[in-house]
């Protein structure tokens, strides 16, 4: 990054760089993004279609692939709603009230983010595995949690635990309590206040958190890999199925299943961007319509 020695030709020149430097930096940034982000994404689809559409569709028709898709959908369908309810409850008590130990509680909510996925899987093996705390009891009653579907769901819930809470907490903190308190004073019940006042205010943050949580739930590999029994057609999620196919040198089939996950990622990014742009527009319109309270709804 070299400085511009040219005399400033415009008023702005003091706070920007010469055209040459601007072009150079933009080019460098875009080249880096293309190399590190775009190329791997393109490779997934190219490798999947290496032998044409016929081979691609054939790979996706495999019953084991379908079983993996179903298990992944089931896992996300359980994990996301559980963390959604938790996220709303945690955000309500952390954002709307003052109490001792609040900062500590917030840190604990974030904790699963800093635990390695492999460690996340291991702790459930230690609790529910054959040698674990509840192992003997579970065996007596013939209940399988680890190396079976419940373990996969539990590990997924753990790794996606903070996603929705951490989107909602700062948003609800920024919005404050005024609107809710007005509703309560005017006679609304707690639930009515939540449904008609709070929920419309946090809906974008909520959608944002849910789609990110969903993407991680469907794509989690490390934690699920520890607690899954790796039984084809039974305890293989899509990412685990990709691993098995790849290790068996079935490259096209592995990339075909991977391409479904890459599509999921693209859809996630598209929804996320749409939510952000929509939110920005609403903020802009809101600011134009009611200039006397522009900061009230700003997260």
């Amino acid at each position, binding site marked *: *990054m070299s*400085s511009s020695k040219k005399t400033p030709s415009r008023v702005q*020149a003091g*706070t*920007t760089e010469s055209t040459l430097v601007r072009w150079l930096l*933009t080019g460098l*940034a*875009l080249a880096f*993004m293309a190399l*590190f*982000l775009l190329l*791997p*994404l393109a490779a997934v689809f190219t490798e999947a279609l290496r032998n044409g559409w016929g081979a691609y569709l054939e790979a996706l028709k495999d019953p084991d692939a379908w079983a993996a898709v179903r298990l992944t959908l089931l896992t996300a369908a359980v994990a996301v709603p559980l963390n959604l*309810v*938790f996220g*709303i*409850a*945690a955000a309500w*008590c952390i954002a*709307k*009230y003052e*109490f001792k130990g609040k900062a500590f*509680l917030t*840190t*604990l*909510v974030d*904790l699963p983010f*800093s*635990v*390695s996925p*492999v*460690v996340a899987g*291991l*702790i459930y*093996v*230690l*609790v529910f595995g054959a*040698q674990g*705390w509840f192992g003997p009891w579970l065996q007596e009653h013939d209940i399988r949690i680890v190396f079976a579907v419940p373990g996969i769901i*539990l590990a997924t819930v753990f790794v996606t635990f903070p996603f929705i809470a951490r989107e909602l907490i700062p948003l609800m903190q920024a919005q404050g*309590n005024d609107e809710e*308190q007005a509703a*309560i004073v005017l006679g609304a019940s*707690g639930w009515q*206040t939540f449904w008609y006042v709070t929920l419309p205010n946090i809906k974008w943050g909520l959608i944002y958190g849910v789609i*990110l949580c969903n993407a*991680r739930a*469907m794509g*989690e*590999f*490390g934690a699920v*890999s520890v607690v899954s029994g790796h039984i084809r057609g039974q305890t293989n999620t899509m*990412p685990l199925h*990709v*691993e098995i196919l790849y290790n068996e040198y079935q490259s096209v089939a*592995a990339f075909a299943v*991977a391409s479904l*996950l890459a599509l999921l*990622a693209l859809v996630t*990014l598209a929804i996320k961007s749409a939510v952000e742009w929509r939110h920005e527009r609403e903020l802009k319109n809101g600011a134009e319509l009611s200039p006397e309270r522009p900061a009230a709804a700003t997260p």
Partner: protein
Amino acid sequence: MAAGKNVLPGFQLTLGYTLFYLFLIVLIPLSALLFKTFSLSWDQFWSAVASPRVLASYRLTFGASLLAASVNVVAGLLVAWVLVRYRFPGKKIVDALVDLPFALPTAVAGISLSALLAGNGWIGQYLEPHGIQLAFNPNGIVIALIFIGLPFVVRTVQPVLEDAEKELEEAATCLGATRWQTFRLVILPSIGPALLTGFAMAFARAIGEYGSVIFIAGNVPMVSEITPLIIIGKLEQYDYAGATAVASVMLLFAFLLLLVINALQSWQRRRSGASA
């Protein structure tokens, strides 16, 4: 927060549920790890966490993560700068693409990167004849970790750059500073805390990363075997004690990093609060 009495209902219900769920999903299972670790004898623990193969994995994991997070600081600052300060066609799409590593499952990233960098891959085929190998050795690990960590730096620096006051830069220019001096002495200090936070987050994520790395690492003991893989290896041999011991070391380090990140974030908030 509102002054006086808080009339909103639901505090006990939501706090109670939050604590119940937190204990059930996170704290009780994590405590199982601690109990198991404390049930080991010191010799058992030490031989598991300090064997040469495990020590080599720490060196590799920490070294590769440090290198990748450093690259991310430079590249992330560049991308954030270009996205905030310049206009170019397709900017919104580039901005959205930054989050790809968050959205793309790590296993997909892993097989895709190894397909690109392997000796017969798109990129690898041009490098292999020159003796450059990027896949199935520590180079591959660093590349995978750069991919994983990029959004952390961009997304922490971007909002700070957006809020930065241009008046300070104008003043610096008026006082005769070159653009480079302004960047080094005015802009860089103001985004310093955010850069450090992004670095720490990318580093923390890289240390625990598993999915994207194992496909491209080669996984040769003593050379390219990361610590999470050591845990998996011990589990596959039913060495629960050893796996737990190594996991407790990783967990301890994750706690320390979490504290550092929290401290950095509150420093950053104080800084932006003071200047606003």
